[in-house]
């Protein structure tokens, strides 16, 4: 097992494996999303309080969940890179940030669009869930700005990893904000028993799994590019690119 992990952390091995793995995640991910979109929009029954507006849940919840998952991947990989100095983990952290920012932006936008007909407002500054999710977006921006402001990759890796680790506090706040404070945002419902009809829940789980697989595929592709860039002066990259078959 450790040997397998050790091998996977080797940049040339990861570069090859990720090229094979990425489509194997993307294809089932897209199939699940296609099913989830169809079932969520046309098969799931209307909510008795929110009417058809509740269908926004099928993009809002997966994107909000990915906004947190991407941050945890970024911070964990940054932490591993700091402690064990594994080169690949800093590449993982750097690759996760833009994706996390994209899904956080999507979660904020879909939340605002959903909030307009349900709460009568696009945005509420006093709401802890909304504000902490916006801070999460700023953390992603700050992380990416910090990385690009430092020319030395090793120094950029260390500084951004520290920032990512400090920002975990906000992730905890995002998650528990609806329980700790009174919020316009509804509490946890998706994983609570008896809160959602199976006809509504199954498409949502399909979307959650589909988005996760698609995210995994996109992340692998981004890590591959990051590995290629960081290893651009190494022998294996030179051999791969100059070989007759290439290695895109």
């Amino acid at each position, binding site marked *: 097992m450790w040997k397998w992990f050790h091998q996977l952390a080797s940049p040339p091995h990861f570069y090859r494996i990720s090229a094979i793995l990425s489509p194997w995640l993307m294809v089932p991910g897209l199939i699940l999303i296609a099913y989830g979109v169809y079932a969520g929009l046309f098969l799931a029954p209307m909510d008795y309080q929110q*009417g058809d507006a509740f269908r926004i849940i099928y993009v809002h919840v997966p994107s909000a969940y990915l906004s947190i998952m991407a941050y945890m991947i970024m911070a964990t990989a940054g932490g591993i890179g700091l402690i064990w100095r594994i080169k690949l983990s800093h590449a993982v952290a750097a690759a996760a940030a833009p994706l996390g920012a994209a899904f956080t932006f999507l979660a904020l936008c879909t939340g605002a669009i959903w909030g307009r007909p349900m709460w009568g407002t696009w945005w509420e500054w006093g709401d802890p869930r909304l504000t902490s999710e916006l801070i999460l977006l700023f953390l992603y921006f700050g992380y990416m700005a910090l990385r690009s402001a430092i020319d030395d990759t090793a120094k950029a890796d260390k500084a951004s990893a520290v920032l990512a680790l400090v920002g975990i506090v906000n992730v905890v706040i995002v998650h528990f904000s609806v329980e700790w404070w009174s919020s316009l945002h509804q509490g946890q419902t998706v994983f609570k028993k008896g809160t959602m009809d199976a006809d509504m829940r199954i498409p949502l789980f399909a979307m959650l799994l589909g988005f996760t697989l698609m995210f995994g595929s996109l992340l692998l592709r981004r890590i591959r590019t990051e590995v290629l860039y960081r290893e651009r002066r190494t022998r294996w990259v030179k051999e791969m690119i*100059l070989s007759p078959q290439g290695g895109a």
Partner: protein
Amino acid sequence: MDGLAMGGYGAYVWSCFALAFVIVVFSDWRARLRHKRVYRDIEVRLKALEDRE
């Protein structure tokens, strides 16, 4: 048409799904583009080095 109207919430529901589609496609396109660029830059640099040698 009733399915598209979403009980009067059509503009809200469809705009969310459209935005999700745009962001996912954009993320995928950006990832591919950056990979191509990085690969091409390395290729050009290595070929220039090889020619010089």
